[in-house]
Structures are given as structure tokens and as C-alpha cells.
């Protein structure tokens, strides 16, 4: 039986989710589908996840990258998520944020450990290649 495979060959596993108050899910649905079409395995949730729920989810699913879709000001909570991930020993998991994020907030997010902020208009190719790169970074923990 051909049973062994290299860990880096498995499809990236991504969590697409929303925290905070906003509930618009067009962006996260489109992204989830695009990532699937790029060969990734995408765990998808509804909006308004608690930070602790996201951490538990990321842990159980052993995801490589968490994508937070934030349309209003919900990205302000992401630094709290980063802290929670670190305390759960999940510092290797890469976090990206997609949505309307003002420049000042973007630098704050990057400072807090977010790997990348995708703005409206980011191309599919850019997102897919960044996600692939981040997933393999997460795996080489």
C-alpha cells in the first residue's frame, strides 16, 4: 500500500471565519470557494465567532492559516485573537485579515503578528499564492 506522503504535499488547511459584530459574508464565501478551487481544504464558519471558539477550532482542525474577514471595525479584535493563539501554543498558525482596514490599523495588526492584510480588490492569484506560502511556513514549525 502506498501510504506515506510528505507532510508538505497535503493540501493547505485554512480556517475562514468572522469575529466581532459584523455579519456580511459575501467576502468570506467567495474567498472560501476560491481557496477550494485552488486545491485547499477550507473550514468555514458563520459570523460572530468568539475568540476562544476560533482558537479551539484552529487547534482541533490543525489549520495552517486563519483568515479573518472583517468589514466593519471588527479587525480591532484581532490582536486579542493573536494573544489567545499564543497562549494556546498556536503561535505557528498564520493569521491574515481581509476587508476594509485603515492604514493605521493595518500597521497595528502587523505589529500584533498578523501575517498579511488583504484589501478589497486583492486579486485571487495574490491571495492564493500568499495562502500557499503561509501554509507551508506554518508547517515548517
Amino acid at each position, binding site marked *: 500500500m502506498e501510504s506515506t506522503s510528505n507532510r508538505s504535499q497535503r493540501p493547505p488547511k485554512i480556517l475562514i471565519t468572522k469575529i*466581532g*459584530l*459584523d*455579519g*456580511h*459574508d*459575501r467576502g468570506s*464565501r*467567495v474567498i*472560501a*470557494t*476560491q481557496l477550494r478551487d485552488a486545491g485547499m481544504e477550507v473550514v*468555514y*464558519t*458563520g*459570523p*460572530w465567532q468568539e475568540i476562544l471558539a476560533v482558537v479551539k477550532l484552529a487547534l482541533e482542525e490543525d489549520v495552517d492559516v486563519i483568515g479573518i474577514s472583517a468589514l*466593519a*471595525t*471588527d479587525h*480591532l*479584535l484581532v490582536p*486579542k485573537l493573536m494573544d489567545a493563539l499564543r497562549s494556546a501554543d498556536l503561535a505557528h498558525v498564520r493569521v491574515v485579515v481581509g476587508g*476594509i482596514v*485603515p*492604514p*493605521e*490599523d493595518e500597521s497595528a495588526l502587523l505589529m500584533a503578528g498578523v501575517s498579511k492584510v488583504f*484589501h*478589497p*480588490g486583492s*486579486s*485571487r*492569484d495574490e491571495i492564493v499564492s500568499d495562502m500557499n506560502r503561509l501554509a507551508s511556513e506554518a508547517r515548517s514549525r
Partner: protein
Amino acid sequence: MNQEPMQLPLPGFENARATWQRDYSKHIADDHAIRNRSGIQVNALYTPHDWDSERYMDDLGFPGQLPMTRGIYTTMHRGRPWSQRQLIGLGTPEDYNRRLKSIFKAGASAISLIPCNSVYRGYDMDEVDPLLLGTCGTIVNSVEDMDIFLRDIPIDQISAAQNDPLPFTLLAFVLAVAKRRGIPWEKVTGTSNQSDYISHFVANHMFFRIALPGSRRVLTDHIEFTNKHVPGWNPVSVVGQHMQQAGATPAEAMAFTLCTALQYAEDCMARGMAPDTFLPRFTFFFDISVSFFEEIAKLRAGRRVWSRVTRQRLAAKDPRSWRFKFHAQTSGVDLTRQQPLNNIARVTLQAMAGLFGGLQSLHTDAFDEVFSTPTEEAARVAVSTQNILRHEAHLADVIDPLGGSYYVETLTNEMEQQVETTMAKIDDAGGMYKAVESGLVQTMIGESALAFQRQVDSGEQKIIGVNAYQVEETPSHHAPLKRPDPAVTATQLSRFKAFKQSRNQARIRAALDTLASAANSENENIFARVVEAADVGVTHGEIVACLRREMGVGQPLVVA
């Protein structure tokens, strides 16, 4: 609606047409089909072959007359300019009150409040992460907040559009304030802008508070209550905007909106209300994309369909019931972060499409909305855009100025057909309520959103600065972030807590018990109980929580 090309009694027409066709093919050998966002093929040229004024009375008629294509009023913008409704909502109730007064000095008579997202989600300020408080709108949690908000504002002289999803606590607070000031409810006018729970369930989940069956009941109660006690109030605004922003094509958005309105009307009729008692107070709200002619055709077609279904399906007799009154907002979805000043051009086109589409009221987006809450300068440009269109470009001088255009009339007919095809699908699924309950609508919207994204990704749909004509830019066009001062938020929070403490707790408990029992009874009006509760000081969050407990939490149907 496309009939066989008729032989036109125009001497030389056929010959000239054949010549043009031949020459055209010579110049453009492989003329690929162009389709608009709704999937309708757009030809290079439209002539009397496609639409001809023989159809004038069937398709158009006169403004204010059936089939309403040319507008719902006799005089349209010439008689009464559209209302310019700009949204405001940042800071504390005091800030808001100051802003409101300055807007009034500038001559506005219609206001529209944006509450904080915590309010939208149905929470009081002591229930959410303080980091998010007041970052996207004003916090209004109680009758006390509303009182500050409306200090020195003549409630009976303004028209207020409340962004107030059910159970309509904001309107309840306004009614309580009016009562305190001795203003009769008959004088309170405005619109419950966010009453369309179906669109919230499908697309704007943040506003969706109570599970579907409960939402259905509360909205019907609200319509019944305002009908009787606040007759100048529009209890229903059906929001096509949410559907379109979630990805529905313009034709789909129009179809879903009309089906939703039919659903609400049928629910009222099932209650025993006569159509002509509530339909004149139905209003609509559309998103206008930059797909210029398509949007114009969408709005003209929608008007025609509404005037038909109200008569044929709802048996409405009063002409006011046939009128498709709508507010429109230029679509933020089309705006780009790249080369943001380009957004001014986009908003101008969107606004023009809305005006030519015959809107009653208009909100123009600020060009910098893609970054955060608009700066003052950008907000001014947005308002000026409307004024320029009206006073300098004279777009309001002629009623339905594109009426009779071969293209616009053909496209209006084709859009109408598309709208009806989609409406038939919803009818087959058992009506809008059932179609969203089962996820049919969500799936359709998801597919359209993805299809559009694929066109952008492939470059088939060009977006300037995004996938075409990009330039190197250094981010510049945004003002420093305006975030609420934490100290101010903290003060508001402690005032809120003090307010809660100071209330007569027994009365609060009694009001909540009454509300809960109304939710569990068959024949009590829930909104009437909401109004009473607001009056004795029950807060927004307490009211929503009570109804969520009794009727189920509103969870969107997540369609992956």
C-alpha cells in the same frame, strides 16, 4: 417581450440597416457577445426594430400613470426634487445632536441615523467588547439616549429614517420621547429603514436578530401598529441593496425585492389587513451599481412590475398602492481603494443612473468610504455631486429623459423579463419566506457573487486601478482615523449603568414579563409591548434579549 421584427413603414430603413450591418461586420470581424451583470446580451446598436413607439402606451404611458415606467408621480423631480439623505452616526448622542443641528441649519429635513454595530446586533453597550464601541456609529440604548439625541430637534418637523431592525427599539424610543414632549404620534414621520428581515437573513446578518418565524410576526405587528397609531410612518422598506451587495445581479436583486414585498403584503393580508391600508406605506431601497444603463432599466422595470403585481396579485385598488417609492444609495461595492479619487466619477455615474431611474431619495457615497468612515471633505463632495447633477447639469429638469431610447426601452423590457423569470422561481419554491428558509436564494446569490468575482479575476470585467490601468501609488487619501475617545465612551458607559440602576426595577421587570408573554401569545401585538417597555426605561439590549429568549435567536443560514 421581444416580438418578431416587424416591417417598419420607414422608407429606406431596411436597406440602410443591411448596409450598416455589412459595414459593421467588416470592421469588427469577431464581435464577441457582451453581457451585462444580469446576463443580458447587449448589442452594438438598437433601432426601431427592437423597440418602437407603437408600444408607447403599453410600455410607458405617462408619469404617475400606469404602468408607471416613467415615474410614480406626475411631476417627478421637476415638481419636487429628490431628498438628499445622508447618513450620520459617529460619537455620543451629544455629538450626534450637535451634528444634527448643524445639518438642519444647512436646510436638511430628513435624517438618517447609523447606530453602532453593537446596537445593530441587539446589544447594549455594557454587553460588548469596549474596543468596538462606537467605532462605526452612534450608541443609542435607551429612551434617555434618544432624548439627548433629539434635544431641541422638532420631532414633528423632521422625517427620520431609522436604521432600526426589528423589534424597532429606536422607533419605540422616538415614540417615547414624543410622548414626553407632548407631540402626538400622528405627527411623527419617517421610515423604518431596516425592517426587511428577509434581506437580513439572506445577506446582512448583522441586522438579523430574531429567528425567522418570530421576525415574521414582529414585522407584521409593527405594520399593524404603525398603521393604526403612527399613520405618517413607513413601517416597511424592502432592501434590495442587501441582496445586490451580497452578490445578486441587478435583475435578481430587483426580483428578490419584489418577492419579499409580496411576501410581507401577503402576511399582512393573512392578518386581515386590506391591501390599500398598508401598501401606500411600503417603500424600497436599492443599491445602484456603476453598470449605468442596466441600473436605469432595473429601476424602470421594477416600477412596472410592482404596479402590475399590486393590482393583479394583491388586488390593490388605490393608485398609491401601485407606486414603487424608493430610496437609492450609490453602491460602495464598486468603489476602489486604488486611486480613490476615481470613486468620485463612479459615484457620479451611479447617482445619474439612479436619477434617470426615477428615485425618490438618494444617498451618495463618499469617495473615501473604502478606507473608513468618510472625512468631512469627502462627505461634502458626495453632497455636492447631487447638487451639481441637479443645478449645473440640469438632470432634474426633464422627466424620465431616457424614455423612448431604443436601447433603454429594450433593456427595460429585457430586464423585466429576467426579473419575472427569477420571481417565478421564487413562486415555485413557495414564496420568498420559504425560498430563503430553504437557502435557495442564498445559493443563487452566492453563485452570482462568485461568477462576478471570476470575471474580475479573469480580467473580463475591468476595474480601473484594480485589474486595469494600475499605477504605483502611495496611500494618501485618507484622514487620520476618528476613533471614539475611550474616556468619552467610558463616561457614556457609566452614565448608562447609572441609568439602569436608577430605574424602577419592578416596573422594568413587569414590562419585560408583559413583553415575554406577548411573544408567547397568539393575538397580542408585540411591537405595542416594545413601545411600552421603551417608555418605562427598558433598554434596547433588554428588549432584544427578551424576544430572542422567547422567540429564538436569529441565526443566518450559512451556506458554504
